[in-house]
Every structure is written in C-alpha cells, then in structure tokens.
C-alpha cells in the first residue's frame, strides 16, 4: 500500500485535529479540548461560508460578462445579493450604534420574499411527488416496488380523518405499519448508515482519503 502525500502538512493537520476531537467524545478529560476545536471549527465554517459567497458572487459576475442566455439571470442574482447585504449591514449598523432592535428590514425581506418562495417550492413538490408515485410502477415492476406502492396508499388512507370515522381499523393499520415494520426497517437502515459513516470517517483519519488536495 503506497501512499503519496502531496500536501503532508494538511494531511497531518486533518489527522491530528480529527483524532483529538474524536477522543473528546469518549475521554471526559479531553472534552474541553474537543470544544475548543469545535468552536474553532464553527468560526472556520462561518469564514468558509463568507468566502463561498464571494466565490458565488465572482462566478455569477463572470457569467454576466459571457452574455449567453443565463447572464441576465446572473445579473439579477448579483443585484439581489448586493441589495440584501447592504440592507443587512444597515440593520447591523443601527443595532450596534444606536441599540435599536436590529434586522427589522432584513426580516421584512425574509418574510415577504424568502418565505413565500420556499413554501411555494414545497407546495409544487406535492404535484411532483404525486407524479412520481403515479409513474413509479412504470419504471420498476418487481415485488418490492408493488409493496412500496401499496404501503404509500395505506398510510395516506390511514391519515384521513374525515369520512372514515366509521372505519377505525384503517388508522390502526397505519399506526401498526408506522410503529412496527417501518420502525424495524428504519433502525436497520440507520445502523447500516452508521457503519458506513464510521468507515468513511476513519479513512479520513488514517489519511487514505484526502479530499483537501492532500
């Protein structure tokens, strides 16, 4: 097994920090050290987010110059980003300088632009999910696909709370499906995912996977 490190320093940092934080989970004495690194991680993640936004800004700025059919939309995105940042800094300036309750304006933007768009995106998903369920048996026609299909229908029927009070067993079937077989399957899935997560994390900590350009 030959491992060539292109950036040995970054690899050493990743392994060192990882081992200390992991030890902090199991050795009580190292908990404070773990917190120290986690708080450092919070700050670095926040700085990375700011750098990411600068990168997003630069990418769309370049797309504006290309004047293909998407460059108009990039202009709108850049304009919306700058406007929101200016409003946000104005709010922060007011709160720190004059002690006024801050984020009034930016909350207005959140309430009347971001919130309606996100809930509408979620609402349109209802149509997409109905369409996916309808075409599901067109793509897969094996036993388990049929089971999946009828379970979806059974759970939806069991959720009905109008027109079905006379047939209570429908909701009891739904309750049983959710609390017995579905719970067993969910636990099995979660345990399998936990094993995969441990394996992926350990490969980083022993340095065989080095996504940071190592």
């Amino acid at each position, binding site marked *: 097994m030959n491992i060539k490190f292109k950036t040995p320093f970054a690899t050493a940092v990743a392994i060192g920090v990882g081992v200390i934080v992991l030890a902090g989970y199991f050795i009580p004495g190292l908990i404070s050290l773990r917190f120290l690194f986690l708080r450092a991680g919070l700050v670095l993640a926040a700085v990375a987010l*700011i750098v990411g936004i600068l990168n997003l800004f630069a990418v769309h700025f370049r797309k504006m110059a290309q004047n293909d059919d998407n460059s108009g939309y990039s202009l709108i995105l850049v304009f919306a980003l700058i406007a929101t940042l200016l409003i946000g800094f104005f709010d922060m300036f007011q709160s720190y300088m004059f002690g006024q309750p801050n984020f009034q304006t930016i909350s207005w933007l959140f309430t009347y632009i971001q919130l309606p768009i996100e809930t509408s995106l979620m609402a349109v998903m209802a149509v997409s999910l109905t369409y996916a369920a309808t075409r599901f048996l067109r793509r897969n026609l094996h036993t388990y696909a049929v089971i999946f299909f009828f379970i979806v229908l059974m759970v939806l029927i069991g959720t009905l709370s109008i027109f079905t009070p006379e047939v209570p067993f429908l909701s009891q079937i739904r309750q049983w499906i959710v609390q017995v077989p579905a719970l067993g399957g969910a636990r099995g899935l979660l345990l399998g995912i936990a094993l*995969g997560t441990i394996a992926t994390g*350990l*490969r980083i900590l*022993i340095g065989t996977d080095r996504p940071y350009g190592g």
Partner: protein
Amino acid sequence: MTVTGFTGIVIIFLFLGSMFFFTLTRDQEKEKNLRQIPAFRRIKEVIGLTVEEGSQLHVSLGRGGFTSLQSASALAGLSILQEIIKASSVCDYPPVATTGNATISFLAQDIIQGTSKAISTEGHERSSVGELVGLTPFSYAVGTLTTIRENRVSANILAGWYGNEITWLTTAGERQNSPTIAGTAQLPAQAIMYASASEPLIGEEIFAAGAYLGKKPMHVSSVKTQDIFRWILVVLMILGIVLKYLGMHDIFQSILMGVS
C-alpha cells in the same frame, strides 16, 4: 472514563484493525466479489455514453455541513466525484460539480484540480468546475436546476446530504430525459429517491462507492469490515434479547446508555 466511552474506543480500534488486516492480507486472486449494485453499474455505463456522445456529467454533492454527522455523506460524494473525473478524463466536457456548502465546494475544486493534474488533463481548456450554487437547502436545489437544464448535461449523479428538496433535482432530471443516480444518508430523502430517481442508492450503499467504482484497497477493506460489524451487531441484538429475556437487561443498558 465511562463504560460507554471505553466501548466506543474499542469499536474504533476494532474497526481500524480490521481495515488494516484486510488491506495487508489482500489476496488479488481470491479477491472477494461484491454483490451487484445496479446504480454503480449505471454510473459506469453513463460515463461511457458521455464519452461517446461528447456530452457532460453533472455531479451534485449535497449541502451537508462539516461539523456534524452530515459530513460523511459529503465525503462519500467527494470520493464518487474523484472516481468519475478519473474515468471520464477523455470526455469533451469534463464533469461539473455543484454543491450547497462552501467547504464542500472548496474540496470539490481541490479534487478536480488534483485528479486532473494526476491524469494530465489539467491544461484542458474546458476544465471541471466545482460551483457553490445556493446556501440554503431550497436555494441550493433551485440553483442546481440551471446546471441540470444545460443541454450538454446527459446524466446527473446526486451523492451527498439532502432533505426533501431533492425532489426538485430528480424531477428536473426526468424532464430533461437524463438518467439520475442518487444516494444520501438522510432517510426521508432516500424515500423520495427510491420513488423518483432512475437508479437510487439505498441505505449505506453510497458509502461503498470507492470500492465499486475505484476498487481502492482501503475502500474494499472497509466494505468487508462493515460486513463483519454488521454480523457483530446482529449477534449483539440476539444476545441482548436473550439477556433481557433472562432478566439481565441492565448490562446492555449501562454499556450503551450514558455517554457524556
């Protein structure tokens, strides 16, 4: 140190030991076959088609953060990206990667440049791109639509941490008639992928990408280690039930309950 903490450390060292053992005693001829996973076979087919058609592959790495459990899905997505770049180095348009987390976008760009340099396609004027397209789940989903909508993109591979916003990505792929191979660790999102993606990766299959696509020794060993630990968990469950049946349930309770 608590019993639970000690148990955790024992599990980690057992896992590491098993991974190294399988790697060092790896025997090429008696290499253990792995069961067929249609999604990974489809990824290989899609790469071949892309090379022939001269079209482009889109790899989306999700929006998982790096200070929690979600990072594992992001790391699995990054290893899939690496294998795809290696396999599609002769494409006219190298793969494009999108993500909803700043740190993942840096890592994607590092992987793209590192792998391109390794297979000397760095000078390729149309080099791959790792783009941050949005910062909240749904703005990330909507930002990715622009890439999926590109006529050049012939297939979408979604591997990372997702929520229910993944519905937008799978249905956009279907509208473009391009196959979508998707995998994540979040369960509700897996249910959506199972219903709407052309090839879903269920459960922990996403973490076996390195072993299936790249056949890397350490990845194959960690898949074997997962198999062993799977059976250890089954035995522990049976043992726990027998002890509970015999009334000695406290042993497991104390081992597994208290973790500070």
